[in-house]
């Protein structure tokens, strides 16, 4: 089969499945530095002792920042100022192990504290609607950009870049003037950072590069104080250095298992396991289960060419969820052959000893063979239904 690839769009994805690759702040900053965007010097620490050593190297004061792939660190107490190395050690001890919106902190970034004169916001996103990269810049840095966009849209300078024309210095000048930056030194530095951010975005094939805040120090130096950096999964084959930055431990365990097995799986909260072939049909199956009054336990897409082993792998993931009480298989065979799916189901039931009800709806390529295979096996917990709607209804009844 053709490789499965996935990408993504914008910002703020608190609990998203690792499809596009979201980088930690320290990783994003490492990429910023590669492209010449100024950041503060810092060290990564996984233990309080590391934090102490790092602070001794950096000099005080420092900021100890939780590294998590979610927003709201500051409010959750995941960012602390430390005046001494001992202080940094105890801050790190507080933050490490902390739970921030369901993410456990396993590393902290220690950085020289910066005095802040002013804060800007600068981002470059993949605007799928306009089909162009989109710069956004505002003098109202440090706060939620969606709020700025909603409450004072005039304060937000927006500028698309034609992907064939690429970046030119006028883009930087335009943003700086539209964003009402008045100090000539700041204008020059920010315009230069705008160009470097575009270079990073295109070279790394990012879906999002965000600097919030982009600060100005009392000495007039402009620096990236935070980073959000998301890279297109489909492009990682040509960025092995970035692909290596993925933190497999940060994913939901079931979703990590699914990724390892090559199954497209999203955990939901109900008790009807849903398995389909193709993203659209699977999404629709999840919707129909809800529509008939049920609660789907997951979204699980076998993909276009599910063979028997693919079915076994997918069932292995779904059945690891203890909430599941019934399964709904909705297969419309195109490239996927229904006889292969039927064999996979029997194989999985036998291997895993699945005892709860499995409702199977098969249509399309080799559907008759598939149905015959299932009928001949005559398993007591296997229920065949003729249509998608009836299959969903039956699975919901059986889960109750």
């Amino acid at each position, binding site marked *: 089969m053709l490789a499965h690839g996935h990408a*993504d769009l*914008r910002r703020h994805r608190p609990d998203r499945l690792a499809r596009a690759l979201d980088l930690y702040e320290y990783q994003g900053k490492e990429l910023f530095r590669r492209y010449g965007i100024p950041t503060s010097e810092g060290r990564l620490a996984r233990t309080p002792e590391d934090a102490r050593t790092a602070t001794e190297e950096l000099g005080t004061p420092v900021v100890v920042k939780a590294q998590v792939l979610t927003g709201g660190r500051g409010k959750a107490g995941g960012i602390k100022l430390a005046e001494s190395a001992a202080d940094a050690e105890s801050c790190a001890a507080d933050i490490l192990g902390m739970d921030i919106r369901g993410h456990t902190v396993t590393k902290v970034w220690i950085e020289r504290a910066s005095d802040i004169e002013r804060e800007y916001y600068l981002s470059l996103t993949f605007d799928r609607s306009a089909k162009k990269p989109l710069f956004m810049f505002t003098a109202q840095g440090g706060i939620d950009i969606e709020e700025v966009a909603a409450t004072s849209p005039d304060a937000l300078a927006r500028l698309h870049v034609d992907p064939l024309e690429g970046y030119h210095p006028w883009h930087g000048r335009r943003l700086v003037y539209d964003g009402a930056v008045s100090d000539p030194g700041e204008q020059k530095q920010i315009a230069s950072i705008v160009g470097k951010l575009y270079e990073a975005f295109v070279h790394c094939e990012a879906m999002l590069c965000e600097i919030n805040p982009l600060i100005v120090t009392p000495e007039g130096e402009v620096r990236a104080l935070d980073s959000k950096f998301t890279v297109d999964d*489909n492009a990682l084959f040509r960025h092995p250095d970035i692909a290596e930055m993925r933190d497999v431990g940060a994913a939901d365990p079931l979703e990590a298992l699914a990724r390892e097995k090559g199954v497209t799986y999203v955990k939901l909260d109900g008790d009807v396991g849903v398995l389909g072939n193709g993203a659209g049909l699977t999404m629709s199956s999840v919707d129909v289960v809800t529509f008939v009054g049920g609660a789907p336990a997951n979204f699980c897409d076998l993909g276009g060419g599910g063979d028997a082993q693919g079915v076994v792998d997918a069932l292995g993931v779904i059945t690891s969820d203890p909430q599941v009480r019934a399964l709904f298989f909705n297969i419309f065979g195109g490239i996927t052959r229904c006889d292969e799916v039927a064999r996979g189901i029997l194989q999985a039931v036998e291997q895993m000893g699945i005892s709860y009800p499995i409702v199977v709806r098969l249509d399309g390529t080799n559907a008759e063979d598939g149905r015959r295979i299932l009928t001949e096996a005559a398993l007591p917990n296997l229920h065949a239904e003729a249509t998608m709607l009836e299959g969903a209804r039956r699975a919901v009844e059986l889960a109750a």
Partner: protein
Amino acid sequence: MAILVGTETRLVVQGLTGSEGRFHGLRNRSHGTNVVAGVTPGKGGQDVEGIPVFDTVAGAVAETAANAAMVFVPAPFAADAMYEAVAAGITTVVCITEGVPAHEMLRIHAYIQGRGVTLIGPNCPGALSPGKANVGIIPAEIFREGSIGLVSRSGTLTYQIGHELTQLGLGNSTIVGIGGDPVVGSSFLEILALFEADPQTQQVVMVGEIGGDEEEKAAAYIESEMTKPVVAYIAGFTAPPGKTMGHAGAIISGSAGTAQAKKEALEAKGIRVGTTPTETAQLVAEIAAA
């Protein structure tokens, strides 16, 4: 008539000698598609069950007058293949390959504007005009010829809805899978315009899903530009925000791109939206019978 692919299609398959390209190229031919050539660099001069293979698309066009291309090469080489097809003068390019980097698609999308090229995909099932031509991986046997245009971001969901239509005795002019990536060559708008202009098409079913705003743009277009009735279906009502639902482009970002917002945008323009694939087909049948 139908749209995009038909009796006038002369198809070159890029990647014909690969296992997928061969299987589907031959399957398309058996449906009646005029598959005139294959292209695999280094394998020029060979043939695949009588279909001549060329080293370059330009060579295939020169020898066989191919006017449509189907791209079946692996993702790292798919962008190159699309550019090569356009450079060789192909005007309809269908890219089946999944996993093409999004930045490549930004550039290709910009590149084809104004060149008179229609690009379908990537990450799509292709286009089928039942009884005329099939370019892609859509199983032709579940569709029959008729007057309903069908355009979708999904593959198998399209088969599901096509199957429901067939069971109600309805057939299709053309079925177009535009693909599930964030940036695709043709969006709903372009395909809706083709259906509007196609005499065989009497009404259109648009199958959307979460993510992006193409359904919303289509809603405005349908209201202002289309005389033919359109029925819609949207997948992903129960999708949680921030999760990629199988298709790279199927993701709710913040509060944008939800199924509910799309449904409301469509209904605000008087477009009926089915709650399930079954109900969607029933709405089509009602309109067809009226």
